[in-house]
C-alpha cells in the first residue's frame, strides 16, 4: 500500500537559477532515509492556507558532483511555475526549519545498469533525474553522452557541475528565449552507436521529439526511456467538493491535492496503492457529476471514462462544483 510518510525538515535552500531553488531536506529525527536509485522521485506533502493540502512529485538529485548526500538527506530542485500554486508556495514559504512530509522514493524511470552506453538528455528542470543518472554512469565508468538543453545559459541548473562530471562527453545546448534553435533530436539520435539507450527528461514536446526521432530511425521502443507526469497537476486545476452520500460527509478538494489526498487528510480510509492512475484499486462509483470528470488515469477503458460512472480518485478530478460518490 501507500506506506507511511516520512517527517522531514528543510535543512538548506540554495538559489540555482532565477526560477529554480534547491532544497536539502533532512529527516526530522536524523534517521537514515530509504535510498532512491537514479530516476527515483518522492511525493512532497505540504499545506498552504490558500489552497489546502499540496502534493507534488520531485526527482531526487542524490548529491553534488560525485559526492552523494548524507544518509538522512534528500536533495530536490523546485522550479517556480506560476503564482500561488504548489511550486510558488514552496518558493515563498520554505526556509530552513520548515516541516513537511515526503513519501518513500519510487522509481518509474530507472537507469538500466546493464546498458552498454547511455545517452542522457535533459531539458530545463528535467536535469534533476538526469543528473543522478550522470553521476551513476561516471562512477561506474560506463560510456555515455550527456546533452543538456535550455532557453538561456543562466536558466540551466547544475550546468557547471554536470559539465564537469561529463567532461568531453557533455554538451550544453542553448535554444534561445523564446526558443528558436531547438535541439535536432533526429541528428542527435542518428549519431548514436547501436548499443546506446536513451534517457530523456524535460518538457513534453522535447520528450515527444525524442520518441518521434527514435521511431523514424526504426529504433525499438525500449531504447528510449522517459518519464511523463501525464497524471500530474495541470495549471488550470481548480478546487471542488466531493460528497460521500452513504457516509454523509462532504470534503473540499484543493487545487493542489487529489481526491485521495483530501479523503485521507479527512481521516476517510480508502483503498489505493500506486497513486498514479495505474493499479485500479482506488476507483469509486460516481452518482452525480460524472459527465464533468477530467480522467487522468491509464487504468479505465475509454468506455468506462465516457460513461462517467467511476473515476480513479488518485489522479482524476472535476473542474469545480461537486462530485457525488457512492461511498
Amino acid at each position, binding site marked *: 500500500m501507500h506506506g507511511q510518510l516520512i517527517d522531514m525538515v528543510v535543512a538548506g535552500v540554495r538559489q540555482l537559477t532565477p526560477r529554480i531553488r534547491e532544497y536539502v531536506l533532512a529527516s526530522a529525527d536524523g534517521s*537514515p*532515509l530509504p*535510498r532512491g*536509485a*537514479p530516476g527515483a522521485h518522492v511525493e512532497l506533502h505540504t499545506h498552504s492556507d490558500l489552497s489546502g493540502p499540496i502534493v507534488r512529485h520531485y526527482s531526487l538529485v542524490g548529491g553534488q558532483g560525485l559526492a*552523494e548526500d548524507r*544518509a*538522512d538527506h534528500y536533495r530536490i530542485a523546485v522550479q517556480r511555475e506560476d503564482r500561488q500554486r504548489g511550486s510558488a508556495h514552496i518558493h515563498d514559504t520554505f526556509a530552513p526549519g520548515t516541516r513537511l512530509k515526503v513519501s518513500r522514493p*519510487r*522509481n*518509474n524511470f*530507472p537507469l*538500466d*545498469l*546493464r546498458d552498454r552506453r547511455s545517452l542522457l538528455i535533459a531539458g530545463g528542470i528535467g536535469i534533476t533525474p538526469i543528473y543522478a543518472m550522470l*553521476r*551513476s554512469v561516471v*562512477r*561506474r*565508468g560506463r560510456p555515455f553522452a550527456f546533452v543538456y538543453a535550455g532557453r538561456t545559459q543562466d536558466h540551466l541548473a547544475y550546468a557547471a557541475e554536470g559539465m564537469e562530471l561529463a567532461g568531453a562527453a557533455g554538451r550544453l545546448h542553448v535554444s534561445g528565449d523564446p526558443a528558436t534553435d531547438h535541439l535536432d533530436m533526429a541528428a542527435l539520435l542518428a549519431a548514436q552507436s547501436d548499443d546506446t539507450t536513451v534517457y530523456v527528461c524535460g518538457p513534453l514536446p522535447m520528450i515527444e521529439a525524442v520518441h518521434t526521432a527514435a521511431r523514424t530511425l526504426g529504433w525499438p521502443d*525500449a531504447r528510449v526511456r522517459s518519464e511523463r507526469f501525464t497524471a500530474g497537476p495541470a495549471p488550470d486545476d481548480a478546487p471542488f467538493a466531493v460528497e460521500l452520500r452513504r457516509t454523509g460527509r462532504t470534503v473540499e478538494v484543493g487545487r493542489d491535492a487529489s481526491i485521495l489526498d483530501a479523503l485521507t487528510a479527512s481521516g476517510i480510509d480508502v483503498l489505493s496503492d*500506486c497513486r*498514479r492512475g*495505474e*493499479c*485500479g484499486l482506488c476507483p469509486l462509483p460516481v452518482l452525480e457529476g460524472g459527465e464533468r470528470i477530467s480522467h487522468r488515469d*491509464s*487504468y479505465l*477503458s475509454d468506455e468506462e471514462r465516457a460513461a462517467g460512472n467511476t473515476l480513479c480518485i488518485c489522479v482524476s478530478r472535476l473542474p469545480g462544483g461537486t462530485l457525488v460518490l457512492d461511498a
Partner: protein
Amino acid sequence: MNQMTAIPAAASPLEMGRFADQNTPLVRNCWYVAGFADEISRDIISRRLLGVDVALYRTLAGEPVAVRNRCPHRSFPLAKGRLEGDVLVCGYHGMQFDPSGRCLAMPSMPIVPTNANVAAFPTAERGPLVWIWMGDPDHADEALIPDTSWLASPEWKSVRGAYHIKSDYVAMHENLLDQTHFPFLHPGTVGTPEFARSKLDVRLEGDVVVIYRALRDAPPPGIYGVPMGLMDKRVDRFSEARYVSPALHTAYASVTDNADASGTPKKYRFNITHLITPETQTSLHYWWFNSRDRKLDDAEADAFLRTASEKAYLEDVDALEWIAQTVAQDAEPQFDLNFAPDKPGLLMRRSIFERAEAEQARGL
C-alpha cells in the same frame, strides 16, 4: 530482588567491538561471487546472497542476469517461474520482467504498471566466475572486480570445488589468514612442523592484509610434494596469503627444487583462490580453486590436488562449524584470547568492521 554485582569487563579495543564478527552488518558494496559461470544457465536457479534471495539465469545472448527472487506483487519466488526469451515470467500471476527488472506486462491488468519493477543486481562474468554487486548499484564499477585472471589462463591448470558452510564470513577469512593451525587441523596435507615455526611477515597494503613466509631447505608439504614428485627432496618454500576483499582470499605457494635433474633450479607455483560470499550473517557460500603452472596435463596431479584440497577444506568446514555451534549454543560468554599469530586476522576484522561501519553511516 538482590542486587547483582556485574563483573567489569576489561576495555581492550577488541572488547569494545571495533573488530568484525558474526554480528557485524555484512559489507555490501563489494563484488562477490554469485556462482561458478557454468552453474548459471537458461534454467533459473535461486541463491541467497547477503541475506537476499536472488534468481540467476542467462539471456539468450548468454549474459548472466540476477534479479531479486521475489515478485513485487505477491512475493512468489521468481526462480519458480519460467523464461520466455529473455523475459522472466512469474509462476503465480504471469507478471513479466525484463533482465533489468522492468515490468513488461501484468496479464490481469489493462495496462503495464510502471511502478512494479523487481530489483536487478549488476553482474559481470570473469573466466569461470560470475560476480555480483549487492550494494548500492551506483557504485558497481566493474574496475573494482579483483583480478583472478589465472583461472582463465592457458598457462595454468586448476581444480576446483564448492562448499556451503554454516559459519560466518569473518571467521572464514580469519581461518584462511591463520596458518598456525595447519599442522594440527591439516596434518599430512598442507601442514608441516617446520612451516608452523617459520617466521611470519605481516603487512597491510591499504585494506589488503598480506602474510608471507619463507622456509628454506625443508621437506615439501605433501599436497605439493606428491603431485610434483618432490617428496624425496628438500626445497625452498615461499608462501603468501592475502585477504583481498570481503569476497576474496588469494594465496600462492612457490616451491623451488634446487636439485632438479636439469641442473638448474626448477620453480613450481600454486595459486589458491578462495571465494567467499555470505549467505546470511551466519552462513556462507565458498568456492575454491587450486591452480598450478606445471604438469598442466597430468590427470593424476589433478586427482591428487582435488582430493587433498577437498580433505583440507573439509577439515576447515568442520572446524568452523564446530566453533560456530559452540559460540551459538554455549550460554556462558567468552572473550577469545589473541596471540601474536592472530595479527593478520585482527587486521582483516578491523578492516571489515570499518567498511561495515562506513556503510551503516551512509545508510546502506
